[in-house]
């Protein structure tokens, strides 16, 4: 399955899919609510992750947010640029501020852009 359409989770993460590789980040809404991101902890490349479990932390001056793995799979790449300069996540959450790439076997049900917009406008 291949789709370039950006999907979302209720945990305020986004996913784009290329083949069996999912790129995962946090939404602009989440980045805005967190405020200035100061520290990011991500799993190591090669780590197996289980969907729905906490695999990282995103710390801002206001709170510590948790990064959930939206899919089962294996981490193949982490965004070391974001670890080195966490402000990237505020500046470009949907682009350069991506966090991890995961090779997955199956995608769960995800929200589309309209559904996510409805969720955050509640």
């Amino acid at each position: 399955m291949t789709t370039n359409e950006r999907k979302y989770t209720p945990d305020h993460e986004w996913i784009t899919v290329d083949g069996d590789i999912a790129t995962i980040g946090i939404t602009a809404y989440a980045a805005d609510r967190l405020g200035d991101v100061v520290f990011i902890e991500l799993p190591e490349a090669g780590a197996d992750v289980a969907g729905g479990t906490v695999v990282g932390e995103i710390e801002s001056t206001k709170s510590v947010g948790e990064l959930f793995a939206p899919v089962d799979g294996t981490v193949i790449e982490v965004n070391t640029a974001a670890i080195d300069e966490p402000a990237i996540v505020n500046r470009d959450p949907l682009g350069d501020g991506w966090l991890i790439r995961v090779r997955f076997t199956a995608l769960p049900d995800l929200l589309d852009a309209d559904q996510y917009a409805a969720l955050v406008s509640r």
Partner: protein
Amino acid sequence: MTRESAASAPARDLGAFASRHIGIDRDAEATMLAAVGYDTVEALVAAAVPASIAVDGFREPGSSVLPPAATEREAILELRALADRNCVRTSMIGLGYYDTITPAVIQRNVLENPSWYTAYTPYQPEISQGRLEALLNFQTMVCDLTGLATANASMLDEGTAVVEAMLLARRASKSPSNRFLVDADALPQTKALLENRAAAVGIELVEFEVPEPTTVPEPTTVPERTTVPEPSMVPEPVEGTLSTVPEPVEGTLADVLADGAFGVFVQYPGASGRVRNPAAVFAAAKSAGALAIAAADLLSLTLLTSPGEHGADIAVGTTQRFGVPMGFGGPHAGYLAVRAGLERQLPGRLVGVSQDATGHPAYRLSLQTREQHIRREKATSNICTAQVLLAVMAGMYAVYHGPGGLRRIAQHVHAAALRFAAMADAAGLQVVSPSFFDTVEVRVPGGAAPVVARAGERGVNLRLVDADTVSVAFDEVTAPGPRVAVLDDLAHAFGIPAAPAGTQSPAADDADADAGSRFGVPADVVRTSDYLTHAVFNTHRSETSMMRYLKHLADKDYALDRGMIPLGSCTMKLNAATEMESITWPEFARIHPFAPAADVAGYLTLIAQLETWLADVTGYDTVSLQPNAGSQGELAGLLAIRGYHDANGGSARTVCLIPSSAHGTNAASAVLAGMRVVVVACDELGNVDLADLRAKVAEHADTLAALMITYPSTHGVYEHEVRAICDAVHEAGGQVYVDGANLNALLGFARFGDFGGDVSHLNLHKTFCIPHGGGGPGVGPVAAKAHLAPHLPGHPFAQSADHALIPSSASSASSGSASADAGPVVSTIAHGGGPVSAAPYGSPSILPISWAYVRMMGEEGLTAATAAAVLSANYIAARLRDSYPVLYAGDNGLVAHECILDLRPLTASTGVTVDDVAKRLIDYGFHAPTMSFPVPGTLMVEPTESEDIGEVERFIEAMIAIRAEADAAAGGGTDNPLRGAPHTAESVIAGEWDHPYTREQAVYPVTSLVRGKYWPPVRRIDQAYGDRNLFCACPPPEAFA
């Protein structure tokens, strides 16, 4: 007293002290009542406090066990009499507590200086730069001596620091094991604490022996210097001593490690005094995936290789012997330091360096979002506070002595221990270990008790290890220099000849040379690395310089000696001078926590009286003063509830209901008590949703352990339904924990125990006047009904397990006794739970503060204080309601002792944030109220009873003026006096002024400031910069160029 009698006793007729403690006089009271719309204070409180919980008529006037109010002079005389019943002896017990000499310049300018002791936790960093710098000194000192990268701003004591290190290791270790390995030679009180805390969270403890060196390698004596070393002196390296390749661990440690462990903990030096090289143990631990932890004596680390150099991941301990009196157990600053990579796992407070709006270096608390109140049930520690005042003292002790001075103190202590060991050895006694720093264990088969008794005859307290063993610990006081007078007393006690050198020779070279062949510090643990090289530790050698440095720092800070600190939920009331008077008396200060009961009769009486009074005013039966902070009181109370359920077949009861409006620490404490948090919804007013509570109680009926509820609520409102809430929990077999954080709104009008509480913690540093100390010390007593007493904190070294018992039913019937000296007629009950603090009575040396407060206020005074606090909060709410909506109110539109000002509409209409208003208040000469708690975008204001109407009016004037400034700024961009706040002197005189507001408006927005301005030393501090560029030690002097 009843309300009727209160009506006939207006404020002016109160005792002499109460009318000074309460800032609102009769005229002010009339003004405030008129604004609020009530005729009398009693009518106001009657309208605010729900009738269902009021104590009106619960007992007759005079039935309280509280004695009538004493005058300040009388209270001091009574404290003097109590102090005289304590006996200051030469303390050689050791076990982590040592007599010390507080430099007089530090005692006078820090411990006895309200600029330091009345400050709050430095949440507003711009007005806290002085103590933040002092804490950076402390952190730098700890890092240097332990050889680790990052130290926090202090822990509550050594025992709890070890517990926190254990919890840190569990979350940082990749080992799946649930086992924590504990040095058999750890301090016994630390072992007891670990047992209590590990059991609650399901950690298995395994004791092991650190392998002893087979022989003492190399000549061992650390040379004593008879001349004062230069501050910059580097200790001479000892060649070939650091074992770079750790020896493989054999025997028991390898066996236990084979079964897995997440952490290994070594006491360095051990409780017995033995100094063992832990490097091999640490290497083995790390290869097994465990974290390596050392509890290290800081003074010894001036001579011994640091834990970091031995490979430790974490070092913990106490800084007590750095100039902080023993105080019968506390308060003192513990410490916790970690290697690089673990800094974000640190519990407690961490001071770091950031920059202000102009790019100047500025200090602040780092990583605050990791604290328990933000993370709630996801928190990994419930530690909220530090021991700031004591950490400041310990750090300043290092500033005062410098590296050379500290090393010289350590050398004197070590040399005295060597001389004593040689003396005992020469007399044919067996010195248990040849390797020690300051503590020597001597075998006297069957004769230990008589030796200790003979020492007692000479006024010396030794440690009775067992029937055959006595331990002798030297310190700065017993080993002040080459002449060690106590050796004569020791010779008498042990029945051996005194070494001639012991009492006479100033050089003592012979004794050292003799001792050097058999005893001392193993060569492979002699320190060769530098420490305390920063300029601050090498500059202030003269007292003039030291005094001015302390003044320079104090001048940067805003404390209660400058003005009001209206922090909601913090109760920043007066810390009266008379209350503070006795804490430095030697009879309270120089007492070892494990001294014989006969030495501390005065303390035990004072403690029993305070326990009795606190139980009486809260409606409970018994009180433990052991917890060193509110968070520790919460933990003790919840552990008591778990203990009670376990003892009554309710081991499955582990669910703790916590309202969503609760302080985050409640949830963190519940998790650390091994409970599962279930959140109960609150309505839009912040009150517990009774329907949701009933549903949650029903859903978890079989597993319900407790409900934690704060009363009045964290929203500053007296909830109506609290009785029904308590009843619902009790009917399902649960216990009710009433968080006493807001007791200042209740005292004298209602009692937790009367409306359903089974257990509460109180905050003596709020309601009962112990000063905040800039972020500690605190005392968080736990008060409970009698059925929980067997599970309240006990202690293996408690002078007595028995505590005062005043059955709450009896307190309403008996007439009690009015004599403080004789004490009320009470019985006793044993507290049988595990300890939550290192010392049996927590921090006794500051208990005279609360004792004096209650003694001088009496029941009438305490009631009047509550009424005044409620009146003042309602007055502020009434006066500011037009400028800022008051978010929550209870009956008749009234608040309790604090009010929440809602800034969200202002932010929406003008863009001005809570932060802007808080920082602008600095320009007006105020400490901001509590920001964004319990509701984001709000300010919570608590004036307390101590502020007079003049100061309250000044605050109201400032808030109204700021509202006008905000309105004027609306739509005008971000260049306005609010966003620019706070303004330093430099900011308004340097360079061009190109802002749309004037310099005068920037710094003198009201004319009263012209003659009495507090100038902030820095502009607004960049929070994100500091967290992104974490730096937590003293910056080099060039940074300020």
